[in-house]
């Protein structure tokens, strides 16, 4: 190898370093990007946000729009890792970013009666403060069970499909269904199945095998009818099954955890409300992270 070739090679190496460093810099976020949340008081409130991969900070507390402040549950107690990418709060990682979450106690939210919409002020453990739209966060009152529905099974799969099913203990008539966040249905397709609703898809043969199969079944073949096409009231006999199947769209980048309410009456006329939990625990692919930056970055 001649000196000249060697020199040119060194030049190429310098260009490679410069170019890669430049590209890396161009990918860095100025501040964390928060997902849009739809939290209706069901389960732990999880705040999701995207940070740079090298960013080791985590959320300490959030000031909501109604003036209440909540401290995050600490996942970091007694935990130490040199690399931020392998912290306990990391949900997903890509070459440049991390999707992290912070959990907040629902009991505490109930006590403070948190009712938030839009911009919140988020404090990080490294002293950084970010103001960002985090969506809607509401507490909910603790409800008493009605004793009419028995949890049969529930399952969720990594392809964004999940379902919950119950059996009813007496004859009931379901008169309506309401969701606190109808807009989330842009992101999630839902189908409700009872023996009296249509017979498309898998017949309710019972047994766990049907459910496993249902998780991979084509959406059009999943049992039941889309929520918007259901004619109320729905009559159900004792021992009948009711199942809500949900399918998240691949470009869904919102975080939600809330309950859909089924209201109806029993045979002897007593009214009841039965909640169906609708929640996701976002885990993003690198493509979804890019989508999030595109939609919510530099607002």
């Amino acid at each position, binding site marked *: 190898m001649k000196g000249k070739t060697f020199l040119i090679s060194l030049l190429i190496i310098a260009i490679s370093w410069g170019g890669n460093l430049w590209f890396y810099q161009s990918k860095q976020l100025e501040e964390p990007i928060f997902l849009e949340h739809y939290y209706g008081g069901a389960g732990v409130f999880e705040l999701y946000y995207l940070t740079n991969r090298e960013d080791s900070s985590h959320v300490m507390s959030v000031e909501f729009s109604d003036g209440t402040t909540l401290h995050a549950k600490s996942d970091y107690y007694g935990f130490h890792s*040199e690399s931020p990418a392998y912290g306990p709060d990391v949900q997903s990682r890509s070459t440049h970013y991390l999707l992290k979450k912070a959990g907040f106690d629902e009991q505490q939210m109930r006590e403070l009666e948190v009712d938030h919409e839009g911009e919140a002020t988020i404090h990080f453990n490294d002293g950084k403060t970010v103001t960002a739209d985090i969506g809607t966060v509401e507490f909910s009152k603790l409800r008493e069970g009605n004793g009419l529905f028995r949890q049969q099974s529930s399952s969720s799969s990594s392809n964004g499909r999940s379902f919950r099913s119950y059996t009813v203990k007496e004859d009931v008539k379901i008169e309506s269904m309401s969701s606190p966040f109808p807009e989330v249905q842009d992101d999630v397709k839902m189908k409700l199945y009872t023996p009296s609703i249509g017979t498309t898809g898998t017949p309710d043969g019972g047994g766990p095998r049907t459910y496993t199969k249902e998780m991979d079944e084509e959406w059009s073949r999943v049992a039941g009818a889309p929520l918007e096409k259901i004619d109320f009231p729905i009559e159900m006999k004792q021992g009948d099954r009711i199942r809500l199947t949900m399918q998240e769209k691949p470009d869904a980048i919102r975080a939600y955890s809330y309950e859909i309410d089924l209201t109806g009456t029993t045979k002897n006329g007593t009214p009841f409300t039965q909640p169906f939990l609708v929640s996701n625990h976002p885990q993003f692919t690198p493509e979804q992270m890019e989508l999030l930056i595109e939609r919510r970055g530099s607002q």
Partner: protein
Amino acid sequence: MNSFHRIFGGLLLVLLDIHLGQIEILADFIGYLLVLSALNSMDGNWKGMKGARATALTLSVLTIPQAFLGQPAGTNEGVNIGFDPLTIYHQALGLIKLVLIFYLFYVFMDWAKKKGEEELERRTHKLFRGYVTAHLFYYALLPFSMNLPESTVIPLFIVGLAVVMILEIMFLILIRAFHKEQNRIEIY
């Protein structure tokens, strides 16, 4: 101790990293000083000698801070290759070391040629091409690890590191061969 022996010792010191907390004992700059003293004791007319001396001097100055700065965070983790200033400093030193080795190869080849050691010259030339090409590829591809997914980077990085390490050892073995040759020549 003849000059090849000192070059061997110096480069071995550079290759070995023994840390006592932050501070590196057997620091790299001592290794480069050893190489520099060996080069100064040799005939200055060998091809590549001027460049080798200048680079060895540059390195022995530039590596002084390294002894006290500790290893970049990435090396402790094993998996992550960070791109903080410390890592870039380390990589830049590696690159200058490559320049030094480049000149050393020229010195060695010229030495072997002048002493009529054809076999040794051929062997040196072969390793020269392999060593320099592999290292150039390694340094050109390394920065892509910033922007490529982990699953691609880690296997490549492990292979790259293994190849580079093998070549370093082969080079040290070659210097030993030169050392033996010189001893043999001196005896006769």
